[in-house]
């Protein structure tokens, strides 16, 4: 090895938060993919609606603006403990992270419960008509994300309880919250087009 100038990086840290961490980019990629999927779902809704004579189809009853809005409120509320959990992760305050993750998980499970009640009130199924196919499939895809969120939270709670917890896990906690905000945000437009718009304006002609 001849004399050669070097760039010594041994002093650099071994963890970094936020977009300095490659994992953040991996998650951003995942959110872009799934966000695109939900956007295309919404586009399909409006495409079929634009070609329909009556939308929603005749005989469709609204499941109730109250219960669907309540459900959205529970979902939005779950952001708060997830945010506190991420906050606590920044301070490496393990008991607080665990506490807020448990609160969030309880809220998310409650959300799923109310969602099941909403689905029971629907007067159609996925095989009734294309409108039913759109709503059931979208709810199904979103529920899959919600269930994934619950499983992730439970795993993190277990990890926090059993250890060993490393400093790099703090970034995982924050990314977990970031992903949850995304799952919540995905539902808001669908609440509007599925429940709010027909609820406020009634069954409108297409």
């Amino acid at each position, binding site marked *: *090895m001849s*004399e*050669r*100038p*070097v*760039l*010594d*990086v*041994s*002093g*650099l*840290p*071994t*963890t*970094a938060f936020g*977009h*300095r*961490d*490659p994992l953040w*980019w*991996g998650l951003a*990629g*995942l959110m*872009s*993919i*799934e966000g*695109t*999927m939900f956007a*295309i*779902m919404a586009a*399909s809704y409006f*495409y*079929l609606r634009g*070609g*329909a004579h009556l939308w929603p*189809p005749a005989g469709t009853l609204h499941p109730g603006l109250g219960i669907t809005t309540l459900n959205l409120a529970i979902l939005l509320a779950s952001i708060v403990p997830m945010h506190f959990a991420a906050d606590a992760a920044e301070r490496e305050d393990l008991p607080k992270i665990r506490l807020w993750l448990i609160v969030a998980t309880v809220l998310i499970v409650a959300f799923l419960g109310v969602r099941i009640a909403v689905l029971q009130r629907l007067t159609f199924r*996925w*095989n*009734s*008509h*294309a*409108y*039913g*196919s*759109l709503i*059931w*499939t979208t709810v199904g895809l979103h529920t899959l994300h919600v269930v994934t969120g619950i*499983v992730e939270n439970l*795993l993190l709670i277990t*990890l926090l309880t059993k250890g*060993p917890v*490393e400093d*790099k*896990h703090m970034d995982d906690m924050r990314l977990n919250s970031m992903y949850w905000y995304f799952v919540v945000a995905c539902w808001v437009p669908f609440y509007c087009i599925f429940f709010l718009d027909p609820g406020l304006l009634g069954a409108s002609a297409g």
Partner: protein
Amino acid sequence: MSAEPIDPGRTVEDPPADVPEADRRLLERTWEYASGLWGWLAEVDHTRIGVRYIATALIFFALGGIEALMMRVQLARPENGFLGPDLYNQVFTTHGSTMMFLFAVPIMLGLGVYLVPMMVGTRNLAFPRLNAFSYYVYLIGGLFLYAAFFLNTGPDAGWFAYVPLSGPQFSPGKRVDVWAQMITFTEISSLAVAVNLITTIFKQRAPGMSLNRIPIYVWAMLVTSFMVIFAMPAVMLSSLMLALDRLVDTHFFNPAEGGDALLWQHLFWFFGHPEVYIIFIPATGIVSTILAPFTRREVFGYMALVLSLVATGFIGFGLWVHHMFATGLPQLGLSFFTAASIMIAIPSGIQMFCWIATLWGGKLRFKTPLLYVLAFIFTFMIGGLTGVMLAAVPFNTQVHDTYFVVAHFHYVLIGGAVFPLLGGLFYWFPKMTGRMLSETWGKVSFALVFLGFQVTFFPQHILGFEGMPRRVYTYLPETGWGNLNLLSTVGAFILGLGVLVFVGNMLASMMSGAPAGDDPWESDTLEWSTSSPPPPYNFQYLPTVGARAPLWHRSENQPVVVGLRSDRREFLITGMLDADPDHRQVSPGPTIWPFFLSLGVGITFIVGIFTPWGLPIGAVPCAISLIAWFWPRGDQGHHVLKEKKS
């Protein structure tokens, strides 16, 4: 001893007199390939997996080629009886699906998996285990399609599976479901690779490789990856809708219940048109890369080339309706998409002029890779021109669904992507194997491929003008199409022979080719600065970069990176814009769980063809694998390989 170690906390058993050598041996042990069958399945190294991608895709290329030859035999003369109509439908559908989903996209992404980490000067991809998972999901999807094909359940509704033909009413049985699930497998795989490449390119470039010094090939893979992310969800979702329509009686595409058959075409082509560019853009990256060493100059117009790539990436999303000109769309829509389809010729044209300018001022070395580039320029020019013709609605309606379209897209896809790819494989083969391909046989195979291609596909333009529709299993003698079809068949066999010679050359050279050395072509990009084949850690000292062509403008004072620990799989994370060193991370070692996860995904989708319970059934192995994959072992400071030995 300027390259002095590194981290005092590290254990080096050799005396410091020979530090680089001891350090190299330690790196060797840390990054060692896993051994045995278990180790093979657990491998996470990007060069190993990249080569697997390429080899697997080439096998599917051969299968798709055999199907093409079967079709050409059937069409060689009127009223031929070689393939019946049902088998012919399966063969052309499997041919198209194989070439698009199992050959073209995977081999382009696989080449990126192999090259990008070395070109940007890092040790592995950002998510090595995700990379292993991508490969296995792709492999399972491909094997699944062919298992079904040999069980007489090969898809038969065309590679774009239009409803209502592919719907429950007109395609009973499981053939279309096989197609839909194969799509999902390959798209998951491509999406995972795209995320991996983007992250690697953004966060792991060698210090000094600012945005304006990224090799053009890497730019091409970056644009391609973004296109994958925004295009492929459309086909995943639409194939899910199709599968649901067929399995649980949803009505997405059923007009009787408020669905719409055209929704399928919109969703499919919103993916399908960008798909063409997902295949073509990496090929242009290969062309720009090959040109430099074989013209002995940097490629002309770096900035114009990069901006053209990015522009193509955007405009590529605005063209999809030109596949649907015959569906009765409103006038405004037709005009808009005609304009967009003509507009995309602008960035392609700019690239073309940059390549010609490079050739113009260069000292050309007429080796096989350059011949493929020249063949690409010639052939893609023709395919591009017929593309501009097809963008005009009246012309499009006239030749819609005829062999003119078949000729056009084979000129674009084979001329535009396969020619550069073959040139690229010839060019990088020495890096992958340490041996040169035979130049003589390379030229022989090039001549056969080029000649065979033109003889096969040029007559199809004329057949299209004469009205021969695509996807017919035979035609009547009175049509007068017999002679041109026979010519086309002869060409197909010449082309097939050329590919055979290419593959034979690869196999023979792998055994007995001349040793290549590190940099046989005197190239300008970083992958040639390490040995051939590269060690599992790619570079003993990560490079830094001071110029766009780092190997041609290497100054004596260009520093190398030291200070990464060699006793664990450490690599350097840099800033996104200027690639300033930011922090160090540990790259995960071999593990079996991505393989098991891909099996879980396989169970989900394959059982899902028969019953909706596929989802909960498959979710169990998927969840177990994911949890095992991510469960922390606290082994960050340890020798990861040891734990995996079982």
